[in-house]
């Protein structure tokens, strides 16, 4: 990793960052070989001009997001840098709003006919922002976008057949492990569901106070996101409310809870807290995402590795997360907003996603050495190809259904419900949901 610092004009005004901290964070967060190569890219004028706005245009661009980790904030700065190359007189103000509040703020702003110019948001409730009238269609711009074909359908969000959001990158979960513990106990990462519990048992039996599994159990969107591979591994899905599949999935987890293979305190953990727990160094396995790669290189003081999630009898699916870029419905300068977004979707902009440990979505980057060269990203990339499903799931009253699943997952992690009860309550709860 070269010590050459990125040559980017940091015009963004995040309250979290001073220039010194950003630069240090950007390097630390990326921690990938060849960062200098990535960050040097913006100085080459490959930024495409696809909007009608004059490069002399001046004003302010408001971008709302929920990124609070150094590496992600650095990603925003990269995009801003690309944008400011073409539009040096536009001040980009990136505004952090906590994840749980961001969609509320956007919806509230809609009432006052205000809102961001650009929004970076990937929560499971994004359709609600559309319903409230907070978003503007990207279709006219996308139709003119030369790189439109680079983005697979799975990362494009449409409402009423119009494109509203596109994910420049994908985030998903995989199976992290503490190599030192595994070597000590003589265990290899499990490949199928059948291998999982025996692996945990072996770790626990070693008598060294190792915690076999750190996993998220909070009864909100985090719970549903986490339980998905396990429930779908037996064939459950929102289109196929298979109670016996759900029962098998919940029973598997209930067994971990009753045997003490996971920490019941996980019921108050989001994925960030789960990672915090893993950092402590006495946990054998963790289900968590690629975005932790940067922090992992900083904070993990032990040898670790990542493999694909164990596969169930029906293999199972993994939600493809990530933040689409959106345009606010009340932007006073849609051309400028699109100019920013087009930089996000451009090749150098998309490649910069690696900085945050995310996997670029563009087809022409799938075989880029930057992407394939990072061993920690390989399992994630494979999972995308073989097991990824769209997030949030479409159709029906999904949010309410997701909450039902999340609550039951949480109850199972806490050891308060056994598999059959949780499955029964889940199916009943989902069926009881009235159509929106």
């Amino acid at each position, binding site marked *: 990793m070269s010590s050459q610092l990125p040559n980017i004009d940091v015009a963004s005004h995040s309250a979290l960052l001073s220039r010194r901290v950003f630069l240090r964070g950007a390097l630390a967060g990326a921690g990938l070989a060849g960062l200098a190569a990535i960050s040097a890219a913006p100085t080459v004028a490959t930024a495409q001009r696809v909007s009608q706005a004059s490069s002399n245009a001046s004003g302010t661009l408001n971008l709302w997001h929920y990124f609070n980790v150094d590496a992600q904030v650095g990603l925003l700065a990269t995009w801003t840098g690309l944008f400011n190359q073409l539009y040096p007189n536009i001040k980009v103000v990136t505004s*952090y709003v906590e994840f749980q509040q961001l969609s509320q703020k956007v919806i509230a702003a809609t009432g006052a006919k205000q809102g961001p110019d650009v929004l970076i948001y990937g929560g499971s409730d994004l359709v609600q922002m559309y319903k409230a009238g907070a978003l503007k269609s990207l279709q006219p711009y996308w139709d003119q976008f030369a790189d439109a074909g680079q983005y697979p359908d799975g990362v494009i969000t449409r409402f009423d057949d119009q494109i509203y959001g596109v994910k420049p990158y994908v985030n998903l979960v995989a199976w992290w492990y503490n190599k030192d513990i595994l070597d000590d106990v003589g265990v290899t990462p499990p490949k199928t569901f059948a291998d999982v519990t025996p692996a945990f048992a072996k770790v626990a039996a070693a008598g060294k106070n190792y915690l076999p599994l750190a996993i998220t159990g909070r009864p909100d969107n985090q719970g549903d996101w986490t339980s998905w591979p396990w429930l779908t591994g037996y064939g459950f899905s929102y289109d196929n409310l298979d109670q016996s599949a759900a029962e098998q999935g919940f029973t598997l987890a209930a067994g971990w809870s009753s045997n003490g293979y996971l920490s019941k305190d996980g019921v108050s953990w989001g994925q960030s807290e789960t990672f915090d727990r893993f950092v402590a160094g006495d946990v054998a396995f963790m289900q968590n995402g690629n975005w932790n790669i940067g922090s992992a290189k900083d904070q993990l003081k032990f040898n670790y590795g990542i493999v694909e999630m164990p596969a169930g009898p029906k293999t199972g699916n993994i939600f493809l997360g990530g933040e689409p870029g959106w345009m606010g419905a009340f932007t006073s300068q849609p051309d400028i907003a699109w100019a920013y977004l087009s930089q996000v979707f451009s090749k150098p902009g998309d490649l910069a996603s690696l900085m945050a440990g995310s996997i670029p979505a563009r087809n022409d980057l799938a075989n880029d050495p930057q992407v394939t060269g990072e061993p920690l990203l390989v399992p994630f990339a494979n999972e995308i190809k073989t097991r990824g499903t769209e997030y949030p799931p479409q159709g029906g009253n999904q949010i309410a259904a997701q909450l039902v699943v999340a609550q039951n997952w949480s109850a199972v992690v806490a050891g308060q419900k056994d598999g059959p009860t949780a499955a029964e309550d889940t199916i009943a709860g989902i069926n009881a949901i009235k159509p929106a």
Partner: protein
Amino acid sequence: MTGVMRYTWPARIGAILLLIGYGTPLYWLVTTSFKLSNDVFKGLSTFLTFVPTLAAYQRIWTPSLLHAGVNSFLIAAGTTLLTLALGVPAAYALARLRGSIVSIGLGLVIILQMMPQTASVIPLYEVLGRWTLLGSIPGVVLADAALLLPFCTLLLRPFFLAIPIEVEEAATVDGASAWRVFARIVLPMAVNGTVTAGIIIFLIAWGEFLYAISFLVDPQQYPLSVLIASQIGQYGNNWPALMSIAVAAGLPILLIFLVSYRRLREGIALGSVR
């Protein structure tokens, strides 16, 4: 006056128990601000034995922190002044008036406090938008004052009830108007309660988060409460940084309180009527 209460050993034990009950979490809070991230979750072993580092403080000590502190102060001070300006006369009125207006007023005040803050955001967004106060600190001040005014009124009423009516009657007989009686006679006697309520309101507004993050847009206007909240999130937590900002944010508060507390003790002798 307090010398009357002999300081018996139960009180001493009580003080120590209080100190343990409040001091231990505070100790954990402060020590965590001196830890590295991977020492935070390590259990009892790092309660006492860990390698202290200033990393978190170095990280947060940026102009943004001071800026946010100024924002917090502006919001808290503005809210306190506005709330007291409206609430003190209202509490006085509700203490002195007769008839159903008082009971209805009090009932309303209680009910209005039950309004969930999260549910107020959408209507207030519209209201503030109409007055072009969005994205500004005065807008947040207005929202916070609306939140705290019922509470302030309720809290201050007994302090006004406690002032003997004879004093006011005497002044009125002398020809003073209602306003003069209030401003010159009654108010000085309610200093104790007013300052107490003011401190409480200041502290609540200082820590207020939801309205700040909802109604402000430019991150340079964000107060400390938002800065604290931004240390934990979907993609990562930084507990030492969170605790260090909390400590940094708490120190000026402690200072203000200690200063006003001394004045409070002395001010009482002046305010009492024998």
